[in-house]
């Protein structure tokens, strides 16, 4: 049953002529009028994702220090039990990222719909999505979010002050590149395959140990990048935007339209025939092994406890996406691995018939840069020393790509720590661009009493194409890789990002 259709926020020009946006604004207004400790309030919902209001923050990003609009309340706090049950649940850097956020959107949508209907709005109202990779102007934030007033003259609840954009000038849009949806070419939810770099489309299998701090491919790009581009930093660099930080992000109404798009991409990926995990551990969620359950307040403050298997298919939820069936028809006729094999000299017919590999793979360290690096505004350059035996083994698999699956290569920035998420690192290997990594979640991962135990994040890029190219250009003689890391945004003194080690890994698929 698909009672509701979530539509493109850019319909009717993304203005308040789009009824979905107009009613969204009014619904948000109703939720914002409720108190912090009311499970049906906008503030309570933001805190479910993450918050800096129950602790002892003495400055930004403490909620007390957020410049209005919106004026964020800091009291009354809910009871400790309620707080423990609901707040700070968000699942990042894990394979639960997608199902948890799907349930979160469903719960918010129920709250908003109830509020909208009570105002005389449409009973079929659904959350719109912002497809920043859509045609024309759609890479811009829908204009309704930047108006200070609603058409009727009231304050616009969708307007947020601390939203600075990729150039920190209040102009909100998404840069592409680096933002893309290449992850739709993956064919594995967790793990790797010839078409899927690790840790897979949906994220790594995690249990008690979140220390890896590694985002899934959809989570890295577009999710994390869009967060920090939309949030950005204040022009004077004093604070960062709400969207740039998981403990602030859900206060900004654009958050839910971004996540609605992420959820849509998951639906598209499934509609193209890709499967979600089938293991009990994923289906039953972390609660089955003694960790926190996924729980959301429904209207009238009843608790909805759910697991990934309750939301892992569009047939199990009561909404669908506008354009889903069109998007489900993949446009590319050649898979990523076929393109790669052809580049490596395997002829097209053979490449097309080569069986997709098994999911079994093994990874080993290929080389490192062992010293800790400090990244300031000027960026940093480091030599990664490779183990020649491991390197030669890998090069052999590239040379005989027709016979066996050629290795993949990854570059990992390890134990990355810092105090500000609103930045992106552009990484170059031997002068070739290896991609960009957003630092979304960095601050929390660096806190000693946070869920990563202060180990920081591991940021990984698939550098297979670069290694392939070096191999083809016969420019890969030395046992060294030249890595350059350039931050997108300036970094103030004392806010340097530290990188514990750079590691390069080979992954063998056979």
């Amino acid at each position: 049953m698909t009672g509701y259709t979530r539509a493109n926020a850019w319909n009717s020009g993304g203005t308040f002529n789009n009824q979905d946006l107009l009613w969204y604004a009014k619904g948000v207004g109703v939720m914002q009028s409720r108190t912090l400790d009311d499970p049906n309030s906008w503030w309570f919902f933001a805190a479910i994702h993450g918050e800096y209001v129950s602790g002892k923050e003495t400055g930004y990003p403490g909620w007390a220090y957020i410049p209005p609009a919106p004026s964020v309340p800091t009291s009354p706090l809910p009871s400790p039990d309620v707080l423990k049950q609901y707040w700070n649940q968000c699942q990042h850097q894990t394979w639960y990222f997608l199902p948890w956020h799907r349930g979160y959107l469903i719960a918010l949508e129920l709250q908003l719909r109830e509020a909208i209907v009570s105002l005389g709005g449409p009973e079929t109202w659904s959350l719109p999505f912002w497809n920043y990779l859509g045609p024309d102007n759609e890479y811009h934030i829908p204009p309704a979010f930047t108006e200070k007033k609603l058409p009727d003259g009231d304050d616009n609840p969708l307007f947020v002050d601390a939203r600075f954009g990729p150039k920190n000038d209040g102009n909100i849009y998404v840069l592409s590149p680096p933002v893309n949806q290449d992850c739709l070419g993956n064919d594995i939810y967790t793990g790797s395959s010839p078409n899927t770099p690790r840790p897979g489309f949906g994220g790594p299998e995690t249990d008690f140990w979140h220390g890896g701090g590694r985002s899934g491919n959809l989570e890295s790009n577009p999710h994390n990048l869009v967060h920090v581009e939309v949030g950005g930093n204040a022009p004077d660099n004093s604070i960062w935007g709400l969207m740039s930080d998981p403990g602030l992000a859900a206060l900004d109404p654009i958050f839910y339209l971004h996540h609605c798009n992420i959820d849509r991409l998951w639906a598209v990926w499934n509609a193209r025939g890709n499967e979600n995990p089938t293991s009990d551990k994923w289906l039953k969620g972390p609660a089955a092994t003694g960790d926190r359950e996924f729980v959301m307040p429904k209207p009238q403050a009843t608790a909805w406890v759910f697991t990934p298997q309750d939301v892992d298919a569009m047939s199990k939820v009561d909404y669908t996406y506008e354009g889903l069936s069109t998007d489900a028809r993949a446009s590319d006729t050649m898979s990523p691995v076929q393109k790669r094999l052809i580049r490596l000299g395997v002829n097209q017919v053979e490449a097309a018939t080569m069986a997709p590999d098994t999911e079994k793979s093994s990874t080993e360290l290929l080389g490192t840069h062992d010293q800790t690096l400090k990244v300031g505004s000027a960026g940093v350059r480091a030599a990664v020393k490779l183990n020649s035996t491991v390197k030669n083994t890998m090069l052999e698999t590239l040379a005989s790509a027709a016979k066996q699956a050629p290795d993949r290569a990854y570059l990992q920035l390890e134990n990355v720590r810092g105090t500000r998420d609103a930045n992106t690192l552009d990484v170059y290997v031997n002068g070739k661009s290896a991609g960009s990594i957003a630092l979304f979640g960095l601050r929390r991962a660096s806190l000693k009493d946070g869920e990563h135990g202060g180990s920081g994040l591991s940021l990984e890029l698939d550098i297979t194409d670069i290694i392939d190219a070096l191999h083809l250009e016969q420019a890969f003689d030395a046992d060294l890789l030249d890595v350059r890391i350039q931050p997108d945004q300036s970094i103030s003194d004392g806010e340097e990002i530290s990188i514990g080690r750079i590691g390069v890994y080979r992954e063998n698929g056979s």
Partner: protein
Amino acid sequence: MSNVIQTRRCISSGVFGLSAAAWAFLILSPSIKGPETGDAVVGAMCINGVLITQTESAALLQVFTITNLFGWAVMIVAMMFPTLISPLTYIAERSFRHKRLGLMSVFLLAYLLIWSMAGVVLMSVSLLLRQIFSAPYFGLFISMLFIALVWQCSPLKQLCLNRNHQHPAMRAYGLASYQDAARFGFAHGVWCVGSCWALMLFSTVSVVAHQPIMLLLMLIMLSESMQVPRPPSWEWRLIPARKLRGLAMR
């Protein structure tokens, strides 16, 4: 299956194997059976039992025999090694294949060294306490239980647990890689002693049902090591029952 999980499963079987062997040794080995005091020593199969039966009149030096220290180390292998799956997986993932076994061994030895040093202290304290209290040590048992309970609920305990989730960057080349593995082992050992000393001290004074108590303590410590870090505060966290149930379901 992702290969990280594969590596972890491999390491799990390794540490559980070592732990099982250590348990078997503690139960079966005649060399560390207590003296022939008969029914008084229900838990005589393990080093703590030995300590207790010996110390009725023993001097401090007599307690620190090679046998006792060895027995203590075996007990640490039995009770603590299963909690080391996550740091060991981390080391394996991030080191050259030919060095993995060596680095993991260095980590384990460093970790054992810290616990052995803690053992000397804990055994001395235990001995001292036994001279203060008198047999049948009922008062001692109750006091140690109380101390263990208070420590379990304290913010410091949570802080130690959190630090056990800290995995430092490790150099991969040369001698430095072994230094880093040792340093990691020492640090992990220190935070582990910090979070578990009270339970271990309690176990040294529980003569009755000593073995089942040790087994229970092992399960508690194992499930604690699997919890996600949280802000330190006073909290009622005696036995992580939900986590234990989760473990059983796995």
